[in-house]
């Protein structure tokens, strides 16, 4: 392990963290602006032009709040839970490729942090770890609302994790690999020479079940039962104040970014920019175009997440569980059988 290797890794980590945090800040603003637009309001417009500095003002405010820990709570776990949430949310991005490998000065740079051959398994493992932050915060607060929120979150997340894991298997069968950059490269092919062979075309059912499961895993509306305001006050973070609440908030939005990036990588062609290789462009321009394509796809999915949140009402808990167990799992299993059939006999 050379010094260059470590420096390269640290530079990539720094870039990804800074870009992720900035995106989270503007995502919160975007969400408030979009919700305001949908509800015929103006939204934040006082801090800076168009309210552009609103998120930074909010973060500053959170630092100067008091850390209120209920005397009945378990103080250590109460503090540990948001730290688990933020760690998991921020580090899942490590295996997502955000651009093609490009050669520079005789050295191949991979535009992903950790190039491991178990990429998908790492993502699934990290999303399951995310349950701990929420469940532990619900238990540690020793508050009935929090406990109910934590229980709901754990039941919901493990139920939808099954359909998530089952939907990905179709993609793995097509690519024959768990490595995310191999999956993306496989999606650079064309069907009949014209349609990009993105997995959304080859795996429409898998895409839909994975998308729905992602909404449930990130606790976004219509699946935000763990923090359903009308019934559970704040759900698992009822007893959190200041930056400890802020960490949960940050984790939720970071999870949204990661979920979008994973959906783009698995189903929407990742960094593939269709037909770009048919023009004689310099290598650097191609790389930049591909990174831009990745960013645009992620941004569009994030926009979709927000529009869904502000237009669709929340599920009832039994509806949520029956959707997960009685619709999603049979669909995902059927998808595997059909995919296998087509791969063998097409």
């Amino acid at each position, binding site marked *: 392990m050379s010094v260059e290797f470590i420096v390269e*890794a640290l530079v990539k980590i720094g870039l990804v963290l800074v870009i992720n945090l900035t995106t989270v800040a503007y995502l919160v603003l975007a969400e408030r602006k979009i919700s305001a637009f949908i509800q015929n309001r103006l939204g934040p417009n006082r801090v800076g032009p168009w309210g552009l500095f609103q998120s930074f003002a909010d973060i500053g405010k*959170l630092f100067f709040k008091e850390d209120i820990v*209920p005397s009945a709570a378990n103080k250590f776990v109460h503090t540990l839970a948001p730290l688990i949430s933020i760690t998991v949310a921020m580090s899942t991005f490590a295996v997502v490729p955000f651009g093609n490998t490009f050669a520079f000065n005789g050295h191949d740079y991979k535009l992903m942090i950790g190039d491991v051959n178990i990429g998908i398994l790492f993502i699934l493992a990290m999303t399951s770890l995310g349950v701990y932050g929420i469940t532990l915060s619900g238990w540690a607060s020793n508050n009935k609302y929090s406990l109910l929120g934590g229980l709901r979150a754990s039941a919901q997340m493990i139920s939808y994790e099954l359909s998530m894991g089952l939907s990905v298997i179709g993609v793995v069968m097509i690519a024959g690999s768990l490595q995310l950059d191999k999956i993306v490269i496989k999606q650079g092919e064309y069907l009949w020479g014209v349609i990009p062979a993105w997995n959304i075309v080859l795996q429409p059912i898998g895409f839909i079940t994975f998308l729905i499961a992602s909404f449930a895993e990130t606790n976004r509306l219509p699946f935000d039962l763990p923090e359903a305001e009308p019934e559970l006050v704040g759900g698992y973070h009822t*007893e959190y104040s200041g930056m*400890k609440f802020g*960490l949960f908030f940050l984790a939720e939005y970071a999870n949204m970014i990661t979920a979008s990036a994973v959906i783009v990588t698995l189903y929407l062609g990742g960094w593939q920019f269709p037909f770009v290789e048919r023009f004689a462009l310099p290598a650097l321009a191609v790389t930049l175009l591909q990174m831009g394509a990745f960013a645009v796809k992620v941004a569009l999915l994030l926009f979709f997440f927000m529009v869904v949140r502000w237009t669709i009402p929340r599920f009832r808990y039994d509806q949520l569980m029956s959707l997960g167990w009685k619709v999603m799992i049979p669909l995902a299993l059927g998808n595997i059988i059909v995919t296998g*059939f087509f791969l063998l006999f097409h």
Partner: protein
Amino acid sequence: MSGYIPIFFMISAAAGLGLILYGLFKVLGPYRPNTEKQSTYESGMTPVRSARERFSVKYYMVAVLFILFDIEIVFLYPWAVNFHALGLFGYVEMVVFILILLAGYFYILKKGALQWD
């Protein structure tokens, strides 16, 4: 194996970020506790008993079923990676496996383990 070292760095960086934010918050925020402020929130009422009591057994059922199905999925992954190498034989084997899985699935459905009302 060298791919795992950057991932380890990334996890440390993410944990460090959380710790820095929490540390700053601890230093910058005021600390003026009193019993009212630190009582458990229950919509302004005096809390009745503790939150840590018995809760519905359905959550345990979901957890048990999750473990069963998750193990099935673990078996599916290596098969999916080697799908092209295994060919028709592997496909038929896996269809049989999924059918056995579905038999168990319909059994728990009939038993009412997934009834939430």
